[in-house]
C-alpha cells in the first residue's frame, strides 16, 4: 500500500510540472495559409520542380530575413504564415522577367489565395500529343512575350514519373530553334526510345528557354498512353 502511494506520488511530481511547463515557452504555430499560382494571363506557368522561387518579406521588425517560397512544378505554391502584411518579390532565376522593385503587397488573413502575375519570356500554348507506331507527334505554339527575348532551346521531355523536367527525365528531344516560327503552330515527330516503349504510359511536357533565363518555361505535364 505504502509502495503504491510512493509510486503515485512520484508520477504526480513527474507529470504535473511537465503539463504546466508547456504554457509559456511555446509560440503558436502559424495558422494562416497563403496559396496560389504563378500565372500569366490567368494561366499557371509550369516550372522545374525544386527550381524557381518566390520570396516573402515582412516589414516592421528590426531584423529582416526572407521567407523562401517554393513553387510546385504546375506553378502552384502554398505557405504557412501568421496573419499580417507581406511583400512578395518575383526573384530572378525563373523563366520570367524578375520583378524586384515593385513588390507585391499581400494581406494574409486566414486562408488567403493570391495568384502571382509574372511575365514569362515565352509561353507555349495549344500543346497536344498523338502517339502512333512508337513515335509521338507533338503540336504546340510558342509565343514570344518579351520583345527582346531570343529562343535558347526548346525541348520535349519524356519521363516515367510525374516530376519531369530538364533535370529529371528519361529522354529529351531537342527541337532546333530554327524550326520554330513564333506564333505559329510547330509540329514535331519524336521517336520513343526503345527502353521506354514498354512503359505503358509516359509523362510528357515541352519546355522553352530564353537566352536571358537559365530556367525553362514548361507546359503542364500530360500523361500519354502508349
Amino acid at each position: 500500500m505504502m509502495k503504491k502511494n510512493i509510486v503515485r506520488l512520484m508520477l504526480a511530481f513527474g507529470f504535473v510540472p511537465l503539463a504546466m511547463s508547456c504554457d509559456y515557452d511555446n509560440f503558436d504555430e502559424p495558422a494562416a495559409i497563403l496559396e496560389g499560382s504563378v500565372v500569366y494571363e490567368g494561366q499557371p506557368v509550369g516550372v522545374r520542380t525544386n527550381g524557381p522561387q518566390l520570396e516573402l518579406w515582412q516589414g516592421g521588425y528590426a531584423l529582416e530575413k526572407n521567407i523562401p517560397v517554393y513553387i510546385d512544378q504546375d506553378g502552384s505554391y502554398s505557405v504557412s504564415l501568421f496573419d499580417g502584411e507581406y511583400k512578395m518579390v518575383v526573384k530572378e532565376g525563373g523563366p520570367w522577367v524578375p520583378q524586384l522593385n515593385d513588390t507585391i503587397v499581400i494581406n494574409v488573413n486566414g486562408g488567403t489565395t493570391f495568384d502571382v502575375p509574372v511575365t514569362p519570356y515565352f509561353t507555349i500554348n495549344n500543346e497536344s500529343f498523338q502517339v502512333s507506331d512508337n513515335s509521338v507527334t507533338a503540336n504546340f505554339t510558342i509565343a514570344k512575350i518579351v520583345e527582346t527575348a531570343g529562343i535558347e532551346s526548346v525541348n520535349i521531355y519524356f519521363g516515367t514519373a510525374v516530376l519531369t523536367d530538364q533535370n529529371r527525365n528519361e529522354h529529351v528531344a531537342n527541337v532546333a530553334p530554327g524550326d520554330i516560327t513564333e506564333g505559329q503552330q510547330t509540329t514535331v515527330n519524336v521517336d520513343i526510345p526503345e527502353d521506354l516503349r514498354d512503359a505503358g504510359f509516359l509523362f510528357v511536357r515541352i519546355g522553352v528557354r530564353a537566352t536571358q533565363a537559365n530556367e525553362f518555361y514548361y507546359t503542364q505535364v500530360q500523361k500519354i498512353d502508349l
Partner: protein
Amino acid sequence: MRHLFILSVIISFFLTACNNDDWLERDPKNIITDEQLWNDPVLIKSLLANYYDRLPALHGVFNTGGMTDIDDAMWSGHFDGNWHNDFQYGDDYGRYWDYGLIRDINLALDNIDEYSIELDEEQKTLFRGELRFIRAFVYFELVKRMGGVPLVTEQLIYDYSGDPTPLQVPRAKEHEVYDFIYTELEEIKADLAPNNSSQTRANTFTTLALESRAMLYAASLAKYNNRMASPITLPGGEVGIPADKAGDYYQKSLQASQTIINSGNYGLYDENPDKGANFYEMLINKGNREIIFAKDYELSLKTHRFTYDNIPRSLTEDNEGSSVLTPSLNLVESFDYLDGSNGTLNYQDGNGAYIPYENISDIFENKDARLYGTVIYPGTNFKSTPVSIQAGVAIWENDNYVFRAAPNLGNQYDDGNLWTGFDGPKDNAQFVSNTGFYVRKFVSEAAGASTRGVAAQNWWPWFRLGEIYLNAAEAAFETGQQAEATAYINTIRERAGFPANSISNLTMEMIRNERRTELAFEDHRYFDLKRWRIAHEIWNGSDDSEDAVVYGLFPYRIVRPGHEDNNKYIFHKMRPTRFRRPRFFRFANYYSSIDPNVLNNNPKLVRNPFH
C-alpha cells in the same frame, strides 16, 4: 625583554624585504604586451604564421570533400558523405565574408606603426608588405565569390555615439576591388624582395603571381560576362565589370606572368625522364623551383590527411578511410593523346563492340603523361606496388559479354585468375573506387602517410610556374598575340611528354582544356568555369550531359576459353549508382548570396543578383 628584541629583529627583516622594486615589477608570464610583440621579430613571425595559415580556399588545401563537389570527381567514401553526389549548389555555395581576418590585418598594420620602435625600417617594411599581401589575397577570394565587397583598409572603431553609420561601409564596385588588389600588390612588390628565397612567405614573385591570376580573372569577367545574353550586373557596378576594361586587365596579367617567367628564379620541374612520374613529383618534392608559394606541412608540427582520405584501398596503412575522391572518366578522357588527337578512350569500336586489350593499361597508352601524374588508372603502380583495379570478369554467353563481379574484393574466379581486384572498382560500395580511378595528385607515397597517426606532410601549392605559363598563354591569346600564346602552351605540353610545338593552331578551347588537365584538383576548375561564364552550360543539371554527370570506366577480364580474346581486357563505361544528381550550376551561383545577418547589420549593402 629578550623576546622583544628577537621580535623586533624579525620584524625588521620584513621591512627591508620590500625594498627591491625589480623583484616586484616582473613581467607577467602569461600575457604578451603590444610593446613586446611588435618589437620582437620572432613573435611577429609567429603571428604572421597564424595569418598565413588562415589564407582562404574554397576547396583547396587538401579539402577532399570540396574537390569531389566541384572538380571532375565523385565521392566514393563513407555512405554518410553521399550527399556530395546528390546535391545542388545552394544560393550560399562558396559564400565567404571573413572581415575578422581583414580586421586582424588592419589592426596589425596599425600596431606596427604605433609600437615597433626597436625594429629597423627594413624589417617593418617587410612585415607590412606581408600583411598587405595576405589582405590582398583575402580580398581576391572575397571578390571572386561575392563580387564587389566593402573595401575596409583600417580598423573600424565604434565611438559609442549611438550612431553606427560610420561603420557601415557600402560595397565597392567589382572592378574597384580588382584595382585595389593590383595597386596594393604593385606598391609592396619591391618591399618583399628580402623574402625572395622563401617559398612559404610572400615575396616579390608571390605578389606577381597573385597579380597574374587576379588580373586574368578581372579581364575574363569583363569580357565574357558582357557576352552573355543578359549579363549579370548590378546597377551600382558591385557586380559586372565594363567590357572596355578587359584589354587593360589582360595586359597587366600578361606583364606579371612574363616578369615571373623571365626572371629565371623559377623553372618548370623536369628532373625525371619518366614524364608522368615527373609531373607527380613536381607537386610532392618540396623545394623545387616550380613552386612559387606553398603552404607547408611538417610531420612533427602540422600534417594533413589527404593521403589517408584518398589512397587506393589495398594500399592503405590505416584500418579505415581510403578511396574517397575518385576522378571521373570525363576527366581521364580530357587528357589528349601524345600524337595530339582527342583523348576519348577507345573502349568500343564503331559498331558498339568492345575492343579487347592485351594488358589492362594498354587502353591508356600514349596519353598525356599528366594523366599518370594525376590519376591512378588500371595497370599502374603506386608506392612501387601495382594497384589491383579490375571490376570483374566478362563471360561470353549467347553471343554477348555478361559482366560478373566477385562477391568480395580480391576473389579468384573459377579459372584460378583474378575476379575482382583488391582496389575494385565496385559499384555502390564505400571506401573503394566507384569510377575505376583513384587520384594520384597530392597523395603521398611516404611511409605512414595514409595513417591517421602519422599523416602526410607534402605541401599545398598556392601558386606554381605551370599556372603562370597558362595564365600568360590565355592573356596573350586574348590580346591577339597568337605566337606567344602558342609558345607558352607548347612549353607546358612538352613537359607533359608532347613533342616540341605540338600545337600550331591554338584555340581558346585548347587553353581551357589545358587548364583543366594541368590544374585538376588545384582549386581552379570551379573559378575558371565561372569567370568564362560557361559553368551553367558545363554543369547544366542534365542527365544527358557528359560533363554534368560523373561516369566511370570499369575494366573486365574476358573469360572465353579457347578464344583468342581469353584473358584480355575490355572496358565498360557506366554511370555509378552512387552518383545521384548531375551537377547543376544556376545563374544564381555566379555570385554567392550575402548572409541575411550581414545585410541586416549594414543596410548600405545591396544584395547580389538572383538572391
